[in-house]
């Protein structure tokens, strides 16, 4: 090595271990042979995935660090009992998701508190008129109300069934689960722009078919 030449940062080759190396590390860990080294390989293998999973969900770097450690500590404690009935990455995903979900449900507001959304992005809901009564299914007790309700259900069922499958899924996920376009896109493995287009077209079609029944179609 000549003077002035600098050694690059140490990059452990084992971090690029293939699936066979990972399975061997699990086996070695379970047999008690060099457990720490075996676990380090698993840590280096799965840490980027855990980081990818936590990054968009946990905004505080300190909490993300704590959760990462909690996830890998739980993996360490449970690895001896891993019997290989599913894939290792599925098992790690399960643990990571459970640790994250426990943390999320402990936050103020629980599951509805995450992800955080800027207040400017929130849709402005119309204020209910003072003294307005919110109808409930049980309150619609009169025969006329029941008939009107049944007619609306049937009209909506018919209109929804005529939508394209992806359009219907986008509408249902958006309305029923109150998911954002990005979340729907990730779940359906399509782009957010496609989700936006599906929602727009679905809104148009449903308006055409239902505006006389519901007066307005908003979602």
């Amino acid at each position, binding site marked *: 090595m000549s003077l002035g030449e600098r050694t690059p940062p140490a990059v452990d080759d084992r971090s690029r271990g293939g699936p066979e190396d990972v399975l061997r590390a699990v086996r070695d860990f379970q047999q008690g042979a060099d457990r720490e080294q075996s676990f380090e390989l698993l840590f280096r293998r799965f840490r980027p995935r855990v980081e990818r999973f936590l990054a968009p969900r946990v905004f505080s770097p300190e909490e993300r660090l704590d959760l990462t450690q909690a996830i890998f500590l739980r993996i*360490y404690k449970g690895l001896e009992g891993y019997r290989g009935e599913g894939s290792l990455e599925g098992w790690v995903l399960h643990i990571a998701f459970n640790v994250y979900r426990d943390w999320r449900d402990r936050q103020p507001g629980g599951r509805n508190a995450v992800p955080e959304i800027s207040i400017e992005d929130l849709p402005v809901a119309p204020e209910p008129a003072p003294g307005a009564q919110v109808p409930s299914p049980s309150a619609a007790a009169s025969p006329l109300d029941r008939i009107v309700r049944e007619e609306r259900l049937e009209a909506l069922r018919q209109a929804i069934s005529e939508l394209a499958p992806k359009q219907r899924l986008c*509408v249902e*996920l958006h309305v*029923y689960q109150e998911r954002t376009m990005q979340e729907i896109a990730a779940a359906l493995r399509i782009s957010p722009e496609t989700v936006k287009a599906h929602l727009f077209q679905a809104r148009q079609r449903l308006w055409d078919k239902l505006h006389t029944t519901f007066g307005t179609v908003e979602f």
Partner: protein
Amino acid sequence: MAERPSDFRGTLLELIDASPEPMDHPSPDQWIAYQRGDLSADDEARFQEHLVRCRDCFDLAAAAADFAQPDEKPGAAQELETAALWRLLRPQLDPPPQNVRKITDGPKRPSRGFRLPTRLAATFFVALVGMTAWNLQQWSARKAPRPNVPIFDVVANQRGPAGQELTMPAGPQILVLHPDPSEQLPVYHLTIRDATSRELFSYKLRLNRDLALTLYLPAGLPPGRYRLELADGAGKVLETDLLRVTAPE
């Protein structure tokens, strides 16, 4: 009729709630397969239907999307970050269980059913030892001379084959015998016999610095007539005294 905007949303929620659940919850492996596009079209459609109704599965499917992405070659910064995190994590790992096993290897611990009688026996043994120690302490206390115990000197002129009868009340007594000073022996044997010459007690005594033999009778003797025989080490009787114990007044 004026319609509220919530009517459409409420009716849609009602419609979805009333529709049947398409399938059980898929496993994490299945969600990863879904995200990688490894499922058939039918399965994919069923999974997507399930997503509409199940919040947990929706979140899990989104997490699976992050796991299903192919790993890129980590950069130097990411490697350093991973190494730093490993340094934080490593001290928190528990000692390897097999090392613990090595330490604790040994005879198998008896079962609970076997341990109970052993525990009872041990408890009984400890109690027995304690009570024995307490009894010995009490016995020693009884043997020790008490203050104000009457002292009876058996003087020389009271001795002899038909010496004077010594009278004393029942109860704790201290007898002080004065053997013939011309025949000082290293050891004397004192035997107390009842009226029928039956041996009741026998003591081995040594001369004290006053050339006397001291005997403490903590419980004393019951009322009656007794004979004290003082003998040498070979058993030869040197002196005999008569003793009458009277009932306490």
